[in-house]
């Protein structure tokens, strides 16, 4: 007990001396308004209340009430306030409320009547589906009531308040009991048992034998359990139960709840997935939007968060939570880097994991009625899947083994849910479709379904490989049969047999004289696939060419021909074909990688002029191009669609981006910097304008001691966000690693200028300054030792950064529009040691603008370089400009710092410059002016 508590107790005793009189009763003088008002002792007040209520000292209804109020004000939950109340009746409620309750009850009665009627119809599974019920337990196992002999002895006798009769006393052997108690206490001390709540909960529920009604009931029960666990902060458990509920019947609410639980667990990725699913099912679900905004915010995608919040506010303008959240996010956005337009991002095909999971979730045909992503619901699910995929999986044929006999079934159910994503390509599907057989068939039906007027192909719902008589496009039944047989054989890996079937079909086709180039094209293309499999590249090429004559720019024949050429080591035509494929569909990953590979080979083979030896690559007409959403040039026409698509792609790449970034961060945490580097680099491919990724990657480079690269990244980061502390700090470290102590120290000073509290920076600065002095003392110019790696660095970066580079192709941009371009031009010139170029650059800029153009990029090297350029090149041409440049240079940011840290050689250069300048006669300045300025520069 602390001193104050004791004193307060003492005081209370003084004020209310003798709270109870000798009989343990409340003194009569305490039954007083004044006393009750002052008394703070709830226990005592309760006693007073008891006395007042009992009426022993007289009945004082008002004092009674006053005392009750006083107790309530001190302790609203006091037990003394609990009064027995009569049960409420309908009359004690407001009429409206009661009628509402009654109606509700009436409705329930009716509903439950219907429900019961439904229940009484026995399920068709009734009585047969009991395999999943565990067997009867072992017969009649006897369990002794005690925990074990020791605890039995220990626990039993003392538990009784009193022995019930004398016989019990007789049985009681004190010594023995004591012994047992001692023994038991020393003997056992097992570890505590913790039921952490989510252990061993099955996340799937077998509901095959249940009726729809029962499923709904069970799903809602599991949801309740999840809600309860959520309220008890058992988020893991809640997720488990929500998952169970979803495995019975997926509902929007449960997805939403699970998202919330995942947010609590900080599993942003999964939370995002759940939100996405809610929004797929119900595009304007405010809760899901809000939650997704939270996720985005935590993942650092502030613009997307803001977008979601705005969507909420559009629907519900007075949603205070959203408004508050939005201002927060907006503030953060403003604090952070200016948002760059989201456009032209490379769409990589890397959503596999997500989609797979989603397919798992959805593929169970629990609720096929749910509209998914606005797909035409007339088409049966299987067909939908096929149609969506048919044109996207062709390259699968190039490497497929076509072995999966299940591919039809799985593809059907998986596919149909993926359609919600705007038909975007996904790799997993290709894996499921490695055999071109069903793919072909699907291609055929796809075309029919979408172009021809004949009613939706009857093939839907029946796997092509099984039903050999399924109609295929315009093929007459015997040919269709041949083709389907061929597909089946192909799928089973009997390529030569399939070849025969296709050949027959083609022969039959030409004989029958049907005019259906599509179908013939497909047949040729399929036969080409067989040839390819058999290694007969020559025939394959022929068939592909025939197919392409029939249907120019068909993806699959093109790809197959490319593969065939490739395998024959005829790289030039292969290259041309792959390029054409990419024109048709830019998202074919296999083509991309092949193009890259072949490019390398061709360069090796033909040298730098390899392009000249290529055959003509045909220009693909717009109509034949697929999946080029990001390049649709007519936003006016298709604005709504394009916007949606762009959003979708943006979001996908955003997702991918955040996932990659997170993985990268994880690796960093684990210390696997190389792996992290890979992830960040991928990130930057997606989003070259993300400052944090540059700084993160810089950190990784620092850790693996690639200082030049680290410096590059920091420069890039600073280009995006000129005041990024981290970037400065890391560049300082990189510079230190490169033994460029001067630059390092100026960077560190920049950091300290921004935030004087960064202790690491201070420490580093001390260290660097010491090193700097050391290196100066040793007389060697540290600059000489620095391997200048700017050039390669720039190349690296230009791969990562898709923004137009001013110095691309070696030309230096002499008309820099802003500080960024100026910096690049200057760097380019400097990295080549081209002082003349620098002089040109300087002569092209307005001297007044120089400080602004240099912004904070000025360091010792830049300064020395600029002075060199001025001295050796510009001075001879235009001394007036040199003077003006110098005049404005000294107003540049960080000038004094840089000046102080100049090396001896560089100082000499400055002196030299001013000597030269003063020796020049000019109308623009006098000797005195030069002298004044020299005083500024030479310390």
């Amino acid at each position, binding site marked *: 007990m602390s001193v104050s508590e004791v004193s307060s107790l003492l005081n209370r005793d003084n004020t209310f001396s003798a709270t109870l009189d000798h009989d343990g009763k409340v003194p009569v003088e305490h039954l007083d308004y004044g006393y009750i008002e002052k008394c703070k002792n709830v226990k005592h007040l309760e006693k007073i209340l008891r006395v007042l209520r009992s009426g022993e000292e007289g009945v004082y209804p008002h004092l009674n009430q006053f005392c009750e109020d006083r107790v309530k004000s001190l302790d609203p939950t006091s037990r003394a306030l609990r009064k027995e109340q009569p049960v409420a009746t309908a009359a004690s409620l407001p009429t409206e409320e009661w009628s509402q309750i009654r109606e509700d009850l009436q409705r329930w009665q009716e509903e439950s009547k219907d429900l019961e009627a439904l229940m009484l119809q026995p399920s068709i599974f009734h009585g047969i589906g009991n395999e999943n019920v565990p067997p009867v337990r072992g017969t009649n196992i006897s369990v002794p009531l005690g925990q074990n002999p020791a605890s039995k002895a220990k626990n039993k006798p003392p538990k009784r308040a009193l022995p019930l009769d004398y016989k019990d006393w007789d049985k009681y052997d004190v010594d023995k009991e004591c012994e047992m108690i001692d023994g038991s206490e020393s003997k056992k001390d097992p570890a505590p048992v913790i039921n952490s709540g989510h252990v061993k909960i099955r996340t799937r529920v077998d509901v095959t034998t249940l009726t729809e009604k029962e499923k709904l009931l069970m799903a809602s029960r599991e949801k*309740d359990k999840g809600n309860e666990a959520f309220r008890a902060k058992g988020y893991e458990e809640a997720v488990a139960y929500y998952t169970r509920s979803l495995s019975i019947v997926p509902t929007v609410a449960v997805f939403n709840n699970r998202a919330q639980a995942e947010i609590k667990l900080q599993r942003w990725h999964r939370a995002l997935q759940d939100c996405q699913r809610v929004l797929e099912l119900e595009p304007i679900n405010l809760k899901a939007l809000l939650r997704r905004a939270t996720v985005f915010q935590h993942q650092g995608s502030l613009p997307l968060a803001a977008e979601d919040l705005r969507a909420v506010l559009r629907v519900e303008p007075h949603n205070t939570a959203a408004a508050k959240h939005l201002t927060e996010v907006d503030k953060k956005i403003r604090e952070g880097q200016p948002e760059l337009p989201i456009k032209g991002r490379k769409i990589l095909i890397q959503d596999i994991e997500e989609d797979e999971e989603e397919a798992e979730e959805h593929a169970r045909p629990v609720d096929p009625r749910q509209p998914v992503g606005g797909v035409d619901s007339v088409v049966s699910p299987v067909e939908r899947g096929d149609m969506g995929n048919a044109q996207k999986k062709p390259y699968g044929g190039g490497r497929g083994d076509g072995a999966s006999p299940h591919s039809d079934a799985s593809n059907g159910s998986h596919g149909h849910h993926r359609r919600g994503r705007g038909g975007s390509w996904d790799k997993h599907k290709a894996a499921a479709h490695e055999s071109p057989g069903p793919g072909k068939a699907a291609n055929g039906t796809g075309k029919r379904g979408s172009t021809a007027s004949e009613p939706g192909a009857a093939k839907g719902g029946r796997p092509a490989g099984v039903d050999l008589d399924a109609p295929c496009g315009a093929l007459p039944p015997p040919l269709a049969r041949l083709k389907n047989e061929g597909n089946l054989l192909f799928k089973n890996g009997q390529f030569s047999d399939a070849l025969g079937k296709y050949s027959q079909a083609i022969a039959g086709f030409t004989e029958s004289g049907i005019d259906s180039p599509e179908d013939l094209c497909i047949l040729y293309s399929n036969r080409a696939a067989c040839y390819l499999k058999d290694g007969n590249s020559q025939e394959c090429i022929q068939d592909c060419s025939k197919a392409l004559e029939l249907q120019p720019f068909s993806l699959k024949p093109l790809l197959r021909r490319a593969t065939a050429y490739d395998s024959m080591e005829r790289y030039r035509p292969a290259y041309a074909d792959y390029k054409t494929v990419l024109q048709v569909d830019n998202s074919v990953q296999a083509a991309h990688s092949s193009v890259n590979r072949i490019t390398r080979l061709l360069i090796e083979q033909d040298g730098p002029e390899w392009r000249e030896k290529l055959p003509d690559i045909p220009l693909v007409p717009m109509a034949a191009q697929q999946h080029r959403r990001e390049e649709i040039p007519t936003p006016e026409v298709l604005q709504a669609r394009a916007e949606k698509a762009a959003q979708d792609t943006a979001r996908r790449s955003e997702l991918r981006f955040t996932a990659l970034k997170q993985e990268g961060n994880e690796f960093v945490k684990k210390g696997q910097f190389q792996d992290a580097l890979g992830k960040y680099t991928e990130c930057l491919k997606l989003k070259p304008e993300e400052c944090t990724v540059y700084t993160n990657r810089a950190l990784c480079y620092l850790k693996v001691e690639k200082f030049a690269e680290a410096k590059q990244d920091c420069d890039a980061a600073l280009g995006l966000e000129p005041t990024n502390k981290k970037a400065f700090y890391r560049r300082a470290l990189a510079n230190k690693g490169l033994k460029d102590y001067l630059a390092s120290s100026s960077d560190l000073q920049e950091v300290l200028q921004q935030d004087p509290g960064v202790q690491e920076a201070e420490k580093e600065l001390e260290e660097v300054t010491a090193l700097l002095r050391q290196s100066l003392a040793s007389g060697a110019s540290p600059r000489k030792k620095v391997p200048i790696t700017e050039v390669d660095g720039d190349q690296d970066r230009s791969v990562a950064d898709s923004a137009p580079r001013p110095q691309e192709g070696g030309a230096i941009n002499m008309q820099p529009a802003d500080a960024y371009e100026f910096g690049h031009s200057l760097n380019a010139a400097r990295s080549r040691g081209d002082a003349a170029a620098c002089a040109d650059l300087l002569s092209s800029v307005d001297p007044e603008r120089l400080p602004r153009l240099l912004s904070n990029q000025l360091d010792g090297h830049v300064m020395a370089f600029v002075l060199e350029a001025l001295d050796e090149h510009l001075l001879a041409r235009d001394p007036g400009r040199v003077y003006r440049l110098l005049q404005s240079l000294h107003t540049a940011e960080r000038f004094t710092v840089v000046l102080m840290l100049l090396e001896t050689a560089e100082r000499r250069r400055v002196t030299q410059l001013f000597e030269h300048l003063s020796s020049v006669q000019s109308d623009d300045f006098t000797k005195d002016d030069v002298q004044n300025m020299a005083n500024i520069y030479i310390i």
Partner: protein
Amino acid sequence: MSTPFEKPQIISHIQKSLNYTIFDCKWIPCSAKLVCLGNLARGTGVLQIYEVQGGELKLNREIEKAKPFKCGTFGATSLQQRHLATGDFDGNLHIWDLEAATEPLYSVKAHKEIVNSLDGVGGLGVGDGAPEIVTGSRDGTVKVWDPRQKDTPVANMEPGAGEAKRDCWTVAFGHAFNQQDRCVCAGYDNGDIKLFDLRNMAVRWETNIKNGVCCVEFDRKDINMNKLVATSLEGTFHVFDMRTQHPTKGFASVSEKGHKSTIWQVRHLPQNRDVFMTAGGAGNLHLWKYDYPAQRSGEDSEGGAVGVAGTVNLLQNVTLSTQPIASLDWSPDKQGLCVCSAFDQSVRVLIVTKLNRV
């Protein structure tokens, strides 16, 4: 109180006087019907089915059997079948098809004396695993039955030879969150509470609350056991947090003296496991809410995990009758609807409002 309309209200919707002593009443799942079990004056058992219909209880069916019924449950049957399991004064366990109740579907002489309490699990979509019924009797044994096995129990928990036989007043299933795990909790007249682990067939935990245990119930049967409420003869009840079991201290608990008389029953709201109602010997009902502590487990002096109990808050209390309320059942389908029976030979349908806001 300050905000009377924000608190849940307990409204007496229907009251029906009966001509027999009613011991138990249960809602029939997926319906607006309920069964009442009791003892006719002439010493026979009676089972009545009522339907809630526009503010009335309409008698649907009445079945008379030789022995008075003490207790019943639907816990071990499927939603389609909805067979009622009953325990009677003679120690029999029966399972009835309420549509054709002339002969029981399952009948066993379970105990030598009255079956005080029974509970079922594995049916109604509640809990994974086999359907099982547990019975507790005055003869001191607790037995677990599988309706698929005739005549013999699948587990029998009885005092060893030479041990005094205590009257088992109450039994409850819990921890049935997968096919293997399952626990039975039993309360005895001497204040013993025992937790049997049916997976390991051993007593997992026991304690004594000093007064006869009138009723025990897990907050949910089909989750990893979370909370257990035990009510006692002299009016206190204990809420045990069943998540953390300390080797010597067992489970953390909080106790509350809500009633001035015996608490006959405790029933958790099926839609929210943290809300429960206790029914007292003075004809009163108390509605409680359990609030979890910030951290559900802490460390003891030796660094072992020890549970931390939360707090119990009274949401509402009303007096219905002058006689004890012996049974209480929440409707599994309609939140807030409950039925209770008192020894004044009446059954009441109550509505509790605003439960979704607590």
